[in-house]
């Protein structure tokens, strides 16, 4: 298709028309995020937790491994380096999964309400820029922040783990005792972190939605965490009427990454779960735009 034909097409015309301004708005949002000291609190906390986890594993790793495998030693012959970088990363991943949403929401939950509280919307929204574009730029910037966070999480936990503890087979207990050969592990972590990114995007999207409803910085952060805790509690109960709610709660799909560490991986099911999370993110995004376009700026 020729360029001028593309430009004549309505959809492409809208894209060509809005792309430069969207790019500029996204750059502004990212600049604002990374210029604030508070944005680095999450990174700092993540790095400290991962470092501490690795230091703890240097001292206690073998003892912990012996404790876990003592009941299995009758049935299995344990050989090689089982306390390795992969195991440490898997343990860190399981341990940190509870805290990662909080660390991300600390920044994303403040992106809209922070401006309302600071009064800066009073200046920005008198400029000729659509409210939907501002929200879209904030969403994309929040996703980028989440991506950077997950990359640091992955690189630091995996890289440091492999550097300190070396490679080896991965033994995990997920339903049963699963042992994966060294060459069969790395791709599982890549997919697990990718899935983690998608699920954290949903959490970030929820925090942005709640941020659009709030006039202060703290409420959206606390309410996002409260929703995650309540929904996760309902999901884990899985009893009676509450159990029927599970398919409709996005928290039911946050830990699907764990199934990547089983022998019988159902990639299609994992994809469906990721798609459900993505749809949740889209719904949260749509609702945020709907609310923000009608919002009266009173601050």
């Amino acid at each position, binding site marked *: 298709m020729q360029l001028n034909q593309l430009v004549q097409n309505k959809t492409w015309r809208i894209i060509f028309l809005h792309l430069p*301004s969207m790019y*500029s*708005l996204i*750059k*502004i949002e990212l*600049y*604002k995020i990374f*210029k*604030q*000291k508070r944005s680095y609190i999450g990174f700092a906390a993540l790095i400290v937790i991962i470092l501490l986890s690795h230091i703890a594993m240097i001292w206690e790793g073998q003892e912990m491994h012996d404790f876990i495998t003592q009941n299995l030693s009758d049935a299995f012959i344990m050989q090689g380096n089982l306390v390795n970088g992969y195991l440490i990363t898997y343990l860190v991943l399981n341990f940190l999964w509870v805290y990662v949403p909080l660390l991300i929401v600390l920044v994303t939950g403040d992106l809209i309400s922070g401006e309302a509280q*600071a*009064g*800066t*919307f*009073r*200046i*920005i*929204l*008198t*400029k*000729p*820029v*659509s409210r939907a574009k501002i929200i879209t730029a904030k969403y994309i910037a929040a996703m980028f922040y989440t991506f950077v966070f997950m990359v640091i999480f992955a690189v630091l936990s995996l890289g440091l783990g492999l550097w300190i503890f070396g490679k080896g087979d991965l033994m995990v207990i997920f339903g049963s005792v699963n042992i994966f050969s060294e060459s069969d592990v790395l791709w599982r972590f890549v997919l697990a972190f990718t899935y983690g990114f998608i699920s954290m995007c949903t959490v970030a999207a929820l925090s942005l939605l709640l941020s659009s409803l709030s006039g202060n910085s703290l409420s959206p952060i606390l309410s996002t965490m409260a929703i995650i805790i309540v929904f996760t509690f309902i999901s884990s109960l899985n009893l009676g009427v509450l159990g029927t709610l599970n398919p409709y709660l996005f928290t039911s799909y946050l830990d699907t990454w764990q199934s990547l560490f089983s022998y019988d991986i159902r990639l299609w099911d994992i994809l469906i779960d990721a798609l459900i999370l993505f749809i949740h993110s889209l719904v949260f995004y749509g609702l945020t735009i709907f609310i923000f376009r*009608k919002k*009266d*700026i*009173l601050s």
Partner: protein
Amino acid sequence: MLKQPVVEITGLSKKLKSIQAVDGLNMCVYENDIYGFLGPNGSGKSTTIRMMTSLLSSDSGSLNIFGKPLNKNRNQILGKIGAFIEKPDFYEYLTAYKNLELLCKYSGQPAIPGKINKILESVGLLDRAHSKVKSFSKGMKQRLGIGQALLNDPDLLILDEPTSGLDPAGVKDIRDLISSLNREMGKTIILSSHQLQDIEMIANRMCIISKGKQVVEGYVEDLLMQQSYFTIFEVDQVYKSIEVLEKSKLRIKLIEKDESQIKVVCKKGIIPEINKILVNNRIAVKSIGTKQNLEDYFLTLT
């Protein structure tokens, strides 16, 4: 030649929670006006200005700017407006220059260093261009707020309390700046202010609102000419004077009193009658003075 209306507001209403903040407001601002927008606290001034800048939606009525309805031509109209709403809140962790650069980009304009520096110079902040806003005084933020309103070289400037918090020299600077923007660059300016002196000294037209409704609108000079006189009677018995004037059923309005004088608003022709009543009641009238300014006019209407 007839001036073109720049802002036309008809029957504008807005309810905030249970309070009718603006109630069927009408007003019209013509090109090249410095339009004073007056009203006591809670009269609906800020709500009206926020509706003019699309920060608030209206419940009913029409709001046309540059001949077009704001709600259907938002971005096009905002591109020709510079606004300063209440207090200036910037990104405190960024410098003055960076704040203006970001706001340029929000407006979809290139952030040209020469233009930004020129604006900083015009509001007297060029030497602090690269200082973080958190280190600025209220007056400096106020000046930066006016600077950001000029970024897009607007045809219409909407300034809400621009001199609030400034020292006398700062107030004079801002008044001079507003006057020169109007006189030399032909910009239409809507100026909402509690400083009635601001309006009296620089506005040519004005509107007074109370409880969300227009009380009066017109040329400042004409309105001052029509007003009742604000008269001060210096007397030896203040309370007795009040008593006898209240009994007299004259068409006067008592505004204020202190130990030695009473201030009333009345038509010029009644002043001798008031004097006669006071003297007949054995009250010594030491002096009679009349004043005519906007503050007095404002007090009589609101």
